[in-house]
């Protein structure tokens, strides 16, 4: 006979305001099997947990129901407490009388009646709970970091400095990400290259870091502590081991006029190239689509001039498989390209701003390249159309961001600050110029951020106009900016020489397909989702995968670096143990009933179902049945719902438990 203990929480007043908790405790106390029932103000607090532990020991309780908030919030807390008191943690269940009851009802009578029913259901359920042994799995103490922007670099360095091997995979020919493109950085205006390149070099030289640039993750198998990752190393056409980075090939390459993506297409590069001089690794890549040798079979000049004989036109993509225990995703962001109306996307485009049509309407990143000392103009602010210095420049914030009607409702977070920075850089470089900024409001919550923004107005003479712009058009060599100044209530028109649009920060293209490979969730914009917005901000819901940087949401450098170090700390926590404990909520096949149809194998999103041969003593094959690998099973229960012969069940969520709950109603 079970001796069930029921503990009703007030949650301060969150529950007790609408549910008569004492009455619930009294009523539930009468249910068969319930040996003890009480209520308490904060069950999750230290005294609350002690109350629970003491009752288990004194009352010799066999099963526990805590009626409080959602199990997503505190199931772990209470199961730990129960375990500390000597019971198997899986003999403890939570009844959710907060989210499912007190928060959504007003009438106290009705809410109390409902709470009694909810708790009653869990009492019947817990009677059917079985002791589940904790599952342990070994941990491979190597990690994969995807994306070599500042976030990925920081995470890789932190983990490697702790003595663990790191595989860093970057899609582009060089690491560095967007920060490598920036000129100077808010809020201190230090030069981005100067603070970034030493870290890039550290990555290249670190004995514990294996760097795969020009590479992408192809396949991810396995589970926390035991992933197998297949990485596609795209053919570089240059042997990384032989190349000395002398650069002769790039000098001699006759194709010189390919727009360089790194310079936002303002500068040109050859067909064999490194994206920027400080690239890591400093090994060029042949852009096969534009190389004469690949297009017509002729040329081959770079091969002739390369001293160490590093050029290899025959090179093919290779696949490498790396076993790792943890993965940090740091794939960063991209800027919204407003000239193309993305096909099939809910986002509607900004054709009215002429981006892509009017050459002197540029985006913020292009301005960074203009302002950068190592950029295509050597740091001079010049118009792309005619190379003249713009004397009137208009910055427009929130292009794409915070525009529900156009499909993006979030704030891109960095634009207010980098626009303020742009006005300063402009003022430093064009002394007789005037900068205007159209803005909805200035969002500068960060250390020394508001002071920085104020400086752009008070010392650097930027004119801020509160209001949005409706349209831009070219008139002669000017761009007419039509907008409103809502502070004064008038329409304004400015004839500008150049316009800079602060376009929205979006996840990298292909972020969704990478998420699908990794089995992690993402929001409707393709930003990756953290396990809990407040309490688990760097972990994915999928165990063993962590997030760093702008792939999770718009972020500036300090935030991206902090999150990267936090993700690294999580990886190190995981690696601190040799074996990993995981929840035993996994599916089990009842081999007797299984007919081997493998419907479960087809639906399992985790690839946990294997085929197992059943043989008699003589070794004759009797049948092939399904087997669920407990290390891989995600505990989703899809197989249980699918199995036509009811031969697979999820521990902790058996049909028996569910039926007991329904019957209690």
């Amino acid at each position, binding site marked *: 006979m079970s001796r069930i203990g029921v503990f009703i929480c007030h949650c301060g007043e969150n529950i007790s305001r609408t549910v008569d908790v004492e009455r619930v405790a009294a009523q539930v106390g009468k249910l068969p099997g319930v040996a003890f029932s009480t209520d308490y103000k904060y069950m999750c607090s230290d005294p609350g947990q002690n109350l629970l532990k003491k009752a288990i020991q004194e009352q010799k309780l066999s099963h526990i129901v805590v009626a409080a908030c959602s199990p997503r919030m505190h199931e772990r807390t209470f199961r730990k407490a129960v375990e500390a008191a000597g019971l198997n943690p899986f003999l403890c269940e939570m009844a959710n009388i907060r989210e499912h009851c007190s928060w959504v009802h007003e009438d106290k009578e009705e809410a109390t009646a409902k709470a009694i029913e909810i708790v009653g259901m869990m009492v019947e359920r817990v009677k059917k709970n079985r002791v589940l042994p904790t599952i342990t799995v070994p941990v491979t103490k190597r990690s994969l970091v995807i994306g070599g922007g500042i976030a990925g670099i920081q995470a890789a360095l932190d983990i490697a400095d702790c003595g663990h091997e790191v595989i860093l995979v970057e899609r582009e020919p060089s690491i560095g990400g967007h920060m490598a493109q920036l000129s100077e950085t808010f809020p201190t205006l230090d030069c981005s290259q100067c603070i970034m390149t030493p870290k890039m070099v550290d990555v290249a030289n670190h004995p514990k870091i294996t760097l795969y640039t020009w590479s992408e993750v192809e396949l991810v198998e396995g589970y926390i502590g035991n992933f197998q990752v297949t990485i596609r190393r795209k053919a570089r056409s240059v042997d990384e081991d032989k190349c000395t980075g002398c650069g002769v090939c790039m000098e001699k390459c006759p194709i010189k006029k390919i727009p360089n993506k790194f310079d936002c297409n303002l500068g040109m590069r050859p067909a064999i190239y490194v994206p920027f001089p400080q690239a890591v690794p400093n090994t060029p890549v042949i852009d096969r689509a534009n190389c004469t040798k690949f297009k017509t079979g002729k040329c081959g000049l770079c091969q002739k001039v390369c001293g160490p004989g590093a050029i290899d036109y025959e090179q093919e993509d290779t696949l490498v498989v790396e076993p790792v225990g943890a993965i940090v995703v740091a794939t960063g962001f991209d800027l919204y390209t407003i000239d193309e109306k993305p096909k099939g996307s809910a986002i*509607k485009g900004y054709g*009215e701003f002429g981006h892509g049509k009017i050459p002197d309407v540029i985006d913020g990143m292009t301005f960074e390249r203009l302002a950068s000392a190592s950029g295509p103009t050597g740091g001079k602010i010049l118009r792309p159309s005619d190379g003249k210095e713009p004397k009137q420049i208009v910055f427009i914030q929130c292009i794409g961001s915070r525009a529900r009607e156009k499909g993006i409702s979030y704030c891109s977070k960095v634009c207010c600050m980098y626009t303020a920075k742009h006005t300063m850089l402009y003022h430093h470089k064009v002394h007789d110029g005037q900068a205007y900024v159209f803005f909805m409001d200035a969002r500068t919550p960060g250390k020394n951020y508001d002071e920085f923004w104020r400086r752009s107005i008070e010392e650097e003479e930027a004119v801020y106009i509160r209001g949005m712009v409706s349209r831009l058009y070219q008139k002669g060599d000017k761009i007419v900016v039509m907008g409103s100044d809502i502070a004064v209530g008038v329409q304004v028109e400015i004839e500008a020489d150049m316009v800079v649009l602060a376009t929205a920060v979006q996840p990298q293209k292909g972020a969704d397909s990478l998420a699908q490979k990794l089995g992690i969730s993402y929001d409707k914009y393709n930003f990756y989702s953290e396990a809990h917005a407040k309490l688990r901000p760097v972990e994915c819901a999928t165990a063993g995968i962590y997030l760093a940087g702008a792939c999770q949401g718009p972020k500036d450098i300090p935030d991206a670096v902090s999150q990267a170090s936090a993700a690294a700390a999580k990886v190190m926590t995981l690696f601190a143990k040799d074996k990993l404990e995981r929840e035993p909520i996994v599916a089990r096949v009842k081999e007797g009933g299984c007919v081997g149809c493998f419907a479960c194998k087809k639906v399992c999103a985790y690839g946990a179902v294997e085929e197992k041969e059943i043989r008699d003593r003589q070794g004759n094959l009797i049948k092939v049945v399904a087997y669920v690998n407990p290390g891989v099973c995600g505990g989703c229960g899809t197989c249980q719902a699918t199995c036509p012969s009811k031969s697979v069940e999820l521990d902790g969520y058996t049909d028996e438990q569910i039926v007991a709950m329904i019957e209690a109603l």
Partner: protein
Amino acid sequence: MPTKNSLDYAYYPGCSLHASAGEYDLSTRKLFKALGIGLTEVPDWFCCGATPAHNVDELLSLSLCAKNLELAEQVEGDLAVACAACFSRLKFTQHTLEENSTKRKQVETAIDAPVKLDGKVKHLLEILARDLGLERLAASVKKPLSGLKVACYYGCLLTRPPDVPNLDCIEAPTIMEDVLGAVGAETVAWSHRMECCGANFTLSRPGVVIQLTNAILESAKAAGADCVMVGCPLCHGNLDIRQKEIEGVYKTTYNMPVFYLTQLVGLAAGLSADQLGLDALIVNPLPLLKEKHLL
């Protein structure tokens, strides 16, 4: 058995088309006939309330439109609308009553009938570009408008606000250019195609209208257009009827004919100047059309 023509519409001309914009009505009927598109005028239709009603009394405005929508149910087919302002009001009514059940009930009481919202309201442009389709439209061309440079003027109501008319992209639509492209005309890229002409201020604040329309004509001219095309009798009034006055105020000459979309498409379909009511236009288009060998 004869198959039912899927291109049959109920037709809501709106008051302007029975008055100052008679040529829009005439050219619409002739063009649609030539293209094999059926139009049956909604029996007993009346004013939709554009442009003043919604500024004065929302319930009145919604009820006027809802009643017209109810009347339109008597005729088979989607509702074809020529005037951008009527189109906007009818779409607005559908949208508002869909979203707001309180207003819906009030309107049902006012018109003493259940409100039906499933009927589709379509601007003529949609019928030409989507229902008939650009390919069939191109196939119907007898006299391509080659050499004619047209500034397509959308005005403010055809695409805005978001989620209401759903005609095309709100700020950068192409449907007019698509239609004209199909009949061989050249369309210019210009800055003021989505600006407001001042529509309902034409009588109360002519000063404002003159300023706004001047900017529109100036921009069309700067872009090298020979003429302007519109899909709205109110825009037409401001740009065409007031053009002389604007020229006088700004001491300039535009001499820029302003056509209804059905007139230009009709020309390409081989209809005559009479059938299209070209003589009703204030800025005489005949010299331009002769020069381009289109008449």
